[in-house]
Structure formats: C-alpha cells, structure tokens
C-alpha cells in the first residue's frame, strides 16, 4: 500500500473544498460557460488530494522505466535520451525526396520519416489512370525497387533509423519489402536495420480510404504478415505503428484515439499468438503514433493513461514478461486538423503547444507540422522552422531536466484516471462487438469517428470552440505571407523510368514473381516472405496489388 494521503486528511480537505466551492459560486460554474476538455470530460475549478484520494503511488504511477510505466518508458527519459526529431518528408519522384532527407539530416534531424504519395500508399503505380493527378503529391512516388534504391541513395541504412509511413498494409507489404531488399542489395543485413513501418489496417479500411480497398480481414492479414516477418528476420524493426494520429485527424476524441490503437494492437497480438509466436517476441516492437491536439492537459493525461492501459492489457491479457512488451512507446505528430489556413503563422504557436504537451507526456519522437500545412505541402522554410521549433523545445526550455514533471499534479492525475476509465469502457465495448476487425466490417468504427468529427465541426460553427482567425479575431483582406510549395514534375519522370524498367526487366522473372505471390495467397502463407524476394524482379507495386485484389476482393468502407 502506498496511498498518498490518509483518509482523515482527505476527508478534511473534501469538507474544506466544499466550503470553498460554495463561497466562490462553484468556482465559476454559475455562468453559462461549460468547462470541458476537448473530448468532453467535465473539468473542476480546482483539483485537490480529494480527486486523487484512491491513487496508490506504486501501483498506479511507479517509477520511470518500471511498471506501470505511467511516468515514462525509460528510467531517465530525456536526461539520457532526448526524443528523436523526426520530421515528415516526401514529395515528387524519389531523387527529389532524397535531397530533402539529406537536407533534414544535415540540419540536425535525427531520423528519417518518409511519406509516400497517394498512389503508392494505395498500391497503385504512377502510370495508373487513377493516379494521373496525384502522382508525387503528399509524398514520394515509388513504383519499383529501383525507386527505393534512388530514395535512400547515399544515406547510411545501418546508421539512420527510417520511419516508413506506409500507412496501408497493401502499400506496406510491397514498399517495406523493397526497403529490406534494397538494404540486402547494399550488404546491410536485416537484423541491423532500425526503423518503423506504419502498416495499420484501419488506415486502409477506415481512416484514409481509396478507390477499391481490401476488405478489413485481408488488410489485417497483410499487416500481421509484416509483423511476423520482422519478428523473425528484422528484430530491431518496428513492423507496425498503430496510427492513432490519423484516427484523431479523422475525428476521434482523445479516448477513442487510445482505445482504437490499443484494440488494434490487441487484435494483432492475438493473431501473432495464434500463429505460434511468444508475446515477448513481438510485443516489444509494437509501436504507436499519436496526435498532439490543442487541449494541453488532456493530451498529457492521454499519453500517461495510454501507458497505464497498455501495461495492464499486456500484463493481464497476454501475460507478457519482457518490460519492453509492457511499455507503450510512441511518436507524436502535432495535429494537422488544428492548423488554420487563416493567418498561417499563428500555427507556429499552436504546434509548439502541441509539441510541448508531447514532451511533458513522455513521447519517444516528435514531428512538428509546418505552419503552411492547411494551405499546401510544407515549403523548405516551413519545414526548417518546424525542426527549429522542435530544437528550441528540446534545447532551450529545459523541460527535459526531469522525468514526467506533471506527475503528481492533482489535475493531471485525475484526468489521467478519467481517460483511463473511458478507454477501458471503449475496449470492453469493442470486445463485446467481437474485436476491432469485426467493428470495422460493420462500420461501427466509421460511425463513431464521423459522429465525433461532426460534433467537433459544429462546436467550431457555434463558437463553442474558439479557433483564432477562424471564428474569432478574423482579419479581413488578409494577405497570406507565404510562398507555396510546388510539387516537382513526377508523373513524367516516373513514367519514363517505368517504361525503361519494363523494357529491360525479364518478363519470365516477373511472371514467376507474381505466380509465387498468387500461390502464397492460395496457401495462406506469409506474403512478406515471398514479396521481399519478388521485388528483385523489378515487378511494380501496382502489379502486386492487382494479384492481391484479385485474390482478396475489394471493399467499400461504410463512411456515410
């Protein structure tokens, strides 16, 4: 027992607190304004030991690097290992993005965070008729292993950790395979590679839809194939990054964001165990990608609650023993949805608050958005400014001096417990629905998110949620002070390269590669095992997708 306060003390504080509340007119409750978090949790005027009376220090908080990891996943956190500054980058053909990677690395970024263009993320080639207007947009275009070679040319794969934002499993199964095949061709063994792939089936079937996506079960299978493959061959690679960030961007509340990533991780873990793996073989490499939204304290509490829930899930459901299996490790990106097109320089301040909450919440890596993202792809100036913002936070503010500096705050602890409670309720509800894959098939997840998104917008609409520059403090005739990013010519570059490759590669090798993939689908084997080999034939991503869609069919996500 390590209760923080004895009962008599709590009773006296509660009594005096009631008196205080009455004397202050309920701490401001008398007027019409509602005091709620962004996710709708009611907030008291002041927090005291009364609100944390049930808390048991060792059971509920513990020490950093020790169960239940609420105070942080590493013993000394940023004192020894500051968060990685991982700025997202990607646009145009691979030679252009290669230049941006090198620029960011030379300016002090400590890892690569590579995003792929819309067609690549959905499994289409740059030359596909559906891709003609989106090639090179939102990320870099990758069609074959040759593009992957160019993308990482001159970047030491054994030294730099690469996050591949291969959102959809249909993209990841091929693009991650290309990254691995390219490493092998450069003589870097897979067990030396460090990095992360996104590889989240909810991204494919719910968050970021596309024309013709795989059905949830099939997308989930591809995601699990990559986890299994990495567990066996690339043990330092995080084969999945549950994309709570995007769930939140689509409309989720803070508690839904955490509940959905953890429900997804539960489903993957159950599948890995079913495939015969030990939980402590794969769970240490399950990683999470979270959203830094505008409710400062709720976000800090969210990260802390996520660590507590994850610890209990892994411990109680899966009987994990390795401390790394029990620790919720996550990357944070500042909320794109909170950025405004109006008065875009204001976004620098917004994103800085988002990032500060990530640091106070114990993030392992942080990306800060460019201030112009509500208008266009970040320019070089906005990318560098975002990186500098991250560096200022890490080097100048001294928030890294001590671990979990808000631990013990009556408010933050009470909010952490409240979020935990809400997350557990959602997890129980999803268990009742048969798990997250089922809840996706039925459209339950889509409905939840769309409802929350609609409510959020209506709160802006009515002015209940003030957004500076949008529903208050607008400036008429505003002149936008920014240069806009122009995507370099991509479709022609990719088309030309693909044409040459298709002429030069061996048709029979390509046929053999596609046959092997097709056979693997029929035999329900691990597709990554086969595709890592297949991509050497310079088969295209789109050709692989065709086989997968032919075998698994396509699905129309129930969004509306």
């Amino acid at each position, binding site marked *: 027992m390590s209760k923080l306060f004895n009962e008599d003390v709590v009773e006296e504080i509660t009594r005096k607190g009631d008196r205080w509340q009455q004397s202050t007119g309920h701490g401001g409750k008398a007027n019409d304004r509602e005091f709620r978090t962004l996710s709708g949790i009611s907030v008291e005027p002041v927090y005291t030991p009364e609100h944390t009376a049930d808390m048991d220090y060792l059971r509920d908080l513990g020490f950093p690097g020790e169960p239940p990891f609420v105070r942080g996943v590493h013993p000394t956190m940023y004192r020894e290992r500051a968060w990685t500054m991982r700025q997202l980058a990607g646009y145009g053909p691979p030679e252009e993005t290669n230049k941006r990677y090198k620029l960011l690395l030379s300016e002090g970024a400590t890892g690569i965070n590579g995003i792929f263009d*819309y067609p690549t993320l959905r499994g289409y080639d740059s030359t596909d008729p*559906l891709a003609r*207007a989106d090639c090179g947009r*939102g990320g870099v275009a990758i069609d074959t292993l040759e593009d992957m070679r160019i993308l990482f040319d001159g970047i030491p794969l054994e030294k730099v950790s690469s996050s591949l934002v291969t959102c959809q499993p249909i993209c990841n199964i091929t693009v991650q395979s290309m990254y691995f095949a390219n490493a092998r061709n450069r003589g870097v063994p897979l067990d030396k590679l460090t990095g992360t792939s996104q590889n989240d089936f909810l991204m494919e079937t719910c968050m970021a839809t596309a024309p013709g996506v795989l059905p949830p079960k099939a997308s989930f299978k591809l995601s699990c194939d990559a986890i299994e493959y990495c567990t066996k061959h690339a043990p330092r690679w995080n084969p999945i990054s549950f994309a709570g960030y995007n769930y939140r961007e689509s409309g989720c509340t803070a508690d839904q964001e955490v509940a959905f990533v953890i429900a997804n991780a539960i489903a993957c873990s159950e599948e890995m165990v079913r495939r015969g793996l030990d939980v402590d073989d794969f769970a240490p490499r399950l990683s999470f990608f979270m959203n830094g939204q505008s409710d400062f304290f709720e976000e800090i509490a969210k990260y802390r609650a996520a660590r507590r829930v994850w610890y209990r899930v892994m411990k109680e459901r899966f009987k994990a023993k390795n401390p790394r299996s029990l620790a919720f490790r996550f990357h944070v990106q500042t909320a794109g949805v909170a*950025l405004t097109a109006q008065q875009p320089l204001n976004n620098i301040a917004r994103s800085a608050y988002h990032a500060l909450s990530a640091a106070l919440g114990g993030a392992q890596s942080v990306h800060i958005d460019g201030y112009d993202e*509500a*208008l266009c792809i970040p320019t070089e100036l906005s990318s560098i400014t975002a990186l500098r913002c991250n560096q200022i936070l890490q080097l100048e503010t001294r928030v890294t001096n001590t671990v979990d500096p808000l631990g013990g705050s009556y408010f933050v602890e009470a909010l952490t417990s409240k979020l935990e409670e809400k997350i557990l309720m959602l997890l129980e509800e999803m268990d009742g629905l048969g798990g997250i894959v089922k809840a996706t098939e039925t459209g339950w997840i889509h409905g939840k998110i*769309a409802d929350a998104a609609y409510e959020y917008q209506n709160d802006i609409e009515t002015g209940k949620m003030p957004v500076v520059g949008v529903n208050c403090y607008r400036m008429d005739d505003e002149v936008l002070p920014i240069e806009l990013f122009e995507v370099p010519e991509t479709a022609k570059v990719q088309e030309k390269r693909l044409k040459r490759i298709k002429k030069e590669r061996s048709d029979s090798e390509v046929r053999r590669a596609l046959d092997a993939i097709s056979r693997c689908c029929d035999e329900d084997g691990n597709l990554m095992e086969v595709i890592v080999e297949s991509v050497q034939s310079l088969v295209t991503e789109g050709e692989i997708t065709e086989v997968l869609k032919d075998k698994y069919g396509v699905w129309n996500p129930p969004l*509306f």
Partner: protein
Amino acid sequence: MKKAIRVVIARLGMDAHWRGSVVVARAIRDAGMEVIYLGNQMPEAIVETAIQEDVNVIGLSTLSGNHLELAPEVVRLLREKGIRDILVILGGTIPPDDIPKLKAAGIAEVFGTGSSLEKIVRFVSGSD
C-alpha cells in the same frame, strides 16, 4: 411540395481525407437535402453519376493538391454534354492563388480550410 435539392459529394482522384466531405455531406443532409456520397472518383465517373442521379449540385473535396487538374475537368465534361444547370463546388486544402483559376474554369464556389458549414449549406440550398 418542392422537390428536395439533390447533391452528389465525391473526393477527387486518390485523395485520402474523408473528414471534410463526410461532415459537409451530413450538414447538407441535416438541412433537408438529398445526398449521394460517392467516395473517391475520377471526373468521368462523377459526371456520369451526377447525370444519372439528376443532381442539382456536385460537391468535390480534395486535400491532395490535385484540384487544378481534376476539378476543372468535371466542369468541362458537364459542358461537353451540354449541361449548364449543375452547380460544381469544391472544398479542401486549396491555396488562395488557385481560387481565381478555379472560378475562371467554372467552379461556382471554393470552400477552403476553415469554411463554415452554414455558409456551405446556404450556398448549396441556393439561398445565398
């Protein structure tokens, strides 16, 4: 009784962001209009559906940056078929410099980031 206004909502090309399009579709439906939600489509398919469904308005959404290529194409295909009474509007991440170009190409109105639902609904229902 006056026939309800019919609106088709589509995301252009491969754009992945559905939040704006679904929120706008709900607002339009809640205002008593009929909404056909198409998901991702290319201009040819959008125009085809719009004609089949006899809609009054086509609402396009994109945040990927493909708007200058695909949105004017929707208008052009309609004009080629001699259709002038279907209003085409666009929402999403649209750089301000592009708005005059889109309007010149026949897009009736552009609703960028931060546009109010009320304004969109008013425009679509024709009372603006």
